[in-house]
């Protein structure tokens, strides 16, 4: 194939060389560590082949945190470059690659897995199920996501990163203007991860529709389950569009077709159209589960049930419905007729209405409550004012004519960080602090948590608030530098300082995870927060079969009801029955690997080799078709033993809520 190794491995840039060395060393370190500790078998049996929704969730979260770190470092690099006018830290090409990978990684490989991870851990527990509807498919979803994420990340050191923005607008992203393979990575890696996400969507729809425990009617479901369900519906409605868009991009770039090219009659605007047909719903896919988490956290720590439950449900359904009807607001300035722009301005602004309903319902959940300022609750509280700023600036953008002045400026960048970070990142932090004991059997440290919180929120506001003003003063996005005469320097510097504070905050989280893993008290109850929903009705960490006896639900906030009426909290030996559970499988992992290999070959446009590799994919599908493994039964004795262990511990636990 005549590979030019100098081009293959990006060398010559100290930054990239440094990361290459770091990556190689880390990998060697991990392999050596696992070998030394003789953990290979354990890793394979307990994690790589697992189909347990909780473990899959944890793997999602782990990858998400890692990717958040990668995306965050990208963000810091950009901030370093724009800290001073005409700074020479990164050149234009590197800046372009970095904001592209930052956007893609943050949204698709950080926000999505963090949310899907928490969905995986929590949703089956909240509806009183033993797993998701299709556990093996769930594992496959994860491995496809992981494979896509890894493929995307190696672009940094192997072959070159994509550099056309996370929106990858044509004609720029086409072969004529971006001949390198960087954008092939975009097309292929997102495709692989996207297929995984689509299957997650299907899986959770069926899980919620079919696996609810007795009495758990739709209108008794916890709000996080509702939002996860609706987000899954949006996933199924929008990801197929992205699949097609990416496939056509691949065709244009690798097979010379003319969908979006400027030659051969292609239409560059069609890409923007398809991208946002997916891209807009995508932002609600990430924000809805986050809304759900805030609902749980706010209700738990106000010690009140959620205010206006029904209108909360209607509002998410409304948001989901509208989310498919607003995509044009991302290209008001493309010159569509005034009729088009008017209609889409109106549909977009309408989203403020259901979102407002949610806002006020949260506020009134707290009213007359007893608000406990745990770290999880602090995130939920900070979310409200910050998100309102993001939301109202969104409405300003939605006004088509006004958007002619905001579009593609830092005002827009400020808007979306003000919705994405409070809306998604704060939610994930809240969710992690809240559900950590469910996942790992110990709490995160509240003191360090508060340091994390204050640094992060203050840093966040300092970083992104100045961008509103820069944007109104004409500073555009995606520009690697600006002149000294522009007068932007002070605000840009302020923003960089903010980002450093933000990074310290994130560092505090990492330290908290480490500290808590080593030193935190393991002697905690299954319900350390005195919470309201079913996931707290079982052990922390949750035993692999979730519930020895599936709970029966009589009201919303089912566990709260059980506690108040003292029902179903104990388990008698006679009630224990054998439990049927699915077996582990190596196939999803294999599929992830083979998809990764195929994708890699396709990225390098080695079409024949890629075709050969697809045989491996087909082989995987055939093996699955002939797989009749029906799972296994957990014996009564084992269940009794497990249940006794955690139920007796509960008697003498320490109270951790300060």
């Amino acid at each position, binding site marked *: 194939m005549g590979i030019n190794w100098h081009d293959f491995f990006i060398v010559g840039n100290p930054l990239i060389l440094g990361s290459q060395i770091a990556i190689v060393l880390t990998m060697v370190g991990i392999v050596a560590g696992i070998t030394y500790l003789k953990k290979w078998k354990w890793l394979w049996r307990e994690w790589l082949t697992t189909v347990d929704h909780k473990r899959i969730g944890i793997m999602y979260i782990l990858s998400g945190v890692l990717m958040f770190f990668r995306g965050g470092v990208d963000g810091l690099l950009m901030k370093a470059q724009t800290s001073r006018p005409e700074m020479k830290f990164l050149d234009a090409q590197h800046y372009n690659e970095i904001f592209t990978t930052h956007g893609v990684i943050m949204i698709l490989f950080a926000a999505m897995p963090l949310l899907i991870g928490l969905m995986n851990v929590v949703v089956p527990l909240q509806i009183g199920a033993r797993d998701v509807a299709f556990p093996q498919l769930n594992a496959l979803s994860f491995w496809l996501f992981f494979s896509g994420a890894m493929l995307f990340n190696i672009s940094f050191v192997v072959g070159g990163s994509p550099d056309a923005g996370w929106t990858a607008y044509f004609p720029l992203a086409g072969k004529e203007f971006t001949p390198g393979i960087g954008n092939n990575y975009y097309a292929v890696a997102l495709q692989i991860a996207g297929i995984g996400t689509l299957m997650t969507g299907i899986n959770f729809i069926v899980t919620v*529709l*079919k696996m609810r425990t007795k009495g758990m009617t739709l209108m008794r479901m916890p709000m996080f389950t509702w939002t996860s369900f609706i987000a899954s*519906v949006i996933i199924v*409605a929008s990801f197929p*569009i992205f699949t097609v868009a990416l496939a056509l991009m691949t065709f244009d770039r690798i097979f010379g077709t003319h969908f979006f090219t400027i030659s051969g009659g292609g*239409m560059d*605007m*069609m890409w923007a*159209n*398809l991208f946002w*047909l997916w891209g807009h719903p995508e932002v609600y896919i990430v924000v809805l589960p986050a809304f759900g988490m805030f609902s749980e956290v706010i209700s738990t720590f106000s010690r009140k049930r959620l205010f206006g439950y029904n209108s909360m449900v209607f509002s998410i359904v409304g948001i989901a419905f509208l989310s*498919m*009807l607003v*995509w*044009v607001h991302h290209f008001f300035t493309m*010159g*569509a*007729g*005034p*009729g*088009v722009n008017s209609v889409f301005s109106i549909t977009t602004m309408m989203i403020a209405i259901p979102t407002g309903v949610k806002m006020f319902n949260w506020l009134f959940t707290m009213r007359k409550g007893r608000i406990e300022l745990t770290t999880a609750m602090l995130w939920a509280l900070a979310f409200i004012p910050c998100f309102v700023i993001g939301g109202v600036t969104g409405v300003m953008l939605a006004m088509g004519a006004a958007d002619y002045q905001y579009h593609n400026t830092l005002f827009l960048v400020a808007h979306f960080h003000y919705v994405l970070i409070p809306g998604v990142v704060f939610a994930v932090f809240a969710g992690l602090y809240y559900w950590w004991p469910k996942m790992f059997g110990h709490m995160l440290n509240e003191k360090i948590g508060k340091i994390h919180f204050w640094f992060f929120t203050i840093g966040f506001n300092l970083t992104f608030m100045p961008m509103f003003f820069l944007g109104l003063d004409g500073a555009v996005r995606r520009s690697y530098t600006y002149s000294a005469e522009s007068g932007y320097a002070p605000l840009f510097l302020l923003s960089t300082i903010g980002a450093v504070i933000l990074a310290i905050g994130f560092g505090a989280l990492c330290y908290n995870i480490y500290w808590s893993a080593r030193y935190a008290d393991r002697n905690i109850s299954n319900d350390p927060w005195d919470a309201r929903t079913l996931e707290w009705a079982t052990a922390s960490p949750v035993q692999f079969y979730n519930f020895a006896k599936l709970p029966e639900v009589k009201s919303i906030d089912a566990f709260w009801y059980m506690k108040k009426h003292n029902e179903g909290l104990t388990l008698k030996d006679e009630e224990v029955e054998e439990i049927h559970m699915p077996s582990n499988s190596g196939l999803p992992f294999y599929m992830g690997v083979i998809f990764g290999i195929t994708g890699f070959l396709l990225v390098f446009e080695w079409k024949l080799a890629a075709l050969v590799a697809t045989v491996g994919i087909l082989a995987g599908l055939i093996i699955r078709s002939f797989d009749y493994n029906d799972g296994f039964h957990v014996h009564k004795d084992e269940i009794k033993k497990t249940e006794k262990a955690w139920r007796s511990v509960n008697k003498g636990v320490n109270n951790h809520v300060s």
Partner: protein
Amino acid sequence: MEKNHKGFPVTHVIGFIMSLVLTFAALGVAIKTSLPFKTILWIIGSLAVVQAGLQLYMFMHMNEGEDGKSQVINVAYGFFIAVVTVAGSIWVMSFGM
């Protein structure tokens, strides 16, 4: 959703004949008539939708089973999104020009 059909698969045969009729009707309208293009498009488009509905109900038994309702809503929703995508794209990309 009865378990055992007895005798002759009536609905299937009716469905098949109707789909043939609809197909040829569309062909006839498109090739044999000289209506304006828009009219033809509307007619053959409606025939296609009818035929799709026929397949969904008579062959695929979309509304059968304990999840019949979910399945119908799901297909209707999918169809709605598809229509929004097609009509929206055409409208937006024509730029009101």
